[in-house]
């Protein structure tokens, strides 16, 4: 699955399957900000590439993320990666 979103605020994104690419871009309502606001959550078993173009505040619980890039400031956020260490 590939998801490319604009400005996201106080939304929940839940996926039962792996998200290969998740991209948030800047929105028109808050110039220069592409964000998932504080109460927004991302839940997925895996995310391949997660990119946010500008500042972000996101709570996410995923099995694993391969690459995560936030080009702005990540603030007031919680990231929980649940996949355990495998020998």
């Amino acid at each position, binding site marked *: 699955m590939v998801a490319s979103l604009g400005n996201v605020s106080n939304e929940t994104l839940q996926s039962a399957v792996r998200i290969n690419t998740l991209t948030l871009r800047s929105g028109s309502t808050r110039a220069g900000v592409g964000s998932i606001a504080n109460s927004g959550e991302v839940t997925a078993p895996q995310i391949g590439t997660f990119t946010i173009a500008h*500042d972000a505040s996101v709570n996410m619980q995923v099995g*694993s*993320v*391969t*690459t*995560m*890039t*936030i*080009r*702005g*400031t*990540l*603030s*007031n*956020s*919680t*990231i*929980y*990666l*649940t*996949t*355990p*260490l*495998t020998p």
Partner: protein
Amino acid sequence: MTQFTTGALQSVIVTSNGNLGGIFTKRMASSSIEAGIVATVAPLSLPLTTSDFKNTSSIAAITIPKSASASFSNSYVAAYTINTASLGSVSMTNNTSPGTAFGIAAHKVSLATLFVQQGGNKQVHVTNPATNAVFDNVLTAKGITPADFEVARGVSRLVVTWRLASPRAPRGLPLPVWRADAGFPLPAVRR
């Protein structure tokens, strides 16, 4: 997570049950990044004992460039192994709650590099400090006054407990339990 890149981290908690790869940010403030730490350790605190590690997760590298102001402040990085920690300009005092330790905690920190603004911009470079006292000695030798920022903090060797089955163990008795603080050789077992 193989690669984690941000412009800055402000009040962010990253908790991973497994390994973390390369972490790059220009500033880290009031945040924590932990890999393989038990849930009883609060996110904005350092693990204190071997039992605070639930596995041997590692952080491959955390890189923060130096800057005119503190690029690493009131933050926490912890994992069983931290290969490279380049923290940029470090505020030695916990500005949020003075007297409370912050910094890096691990069984092994292979390499830690930071800059401290005390009587000039001094670079501190330590390789696998055994305890925080060793790190403090490096600071003192550089003319830097140790404060709340810590590296290693004396979090020592992981205690490994396992059972050895003995063919001569009398039936009904518990099997012997050996404890080794990652120390070898193992106790001799007579067969």
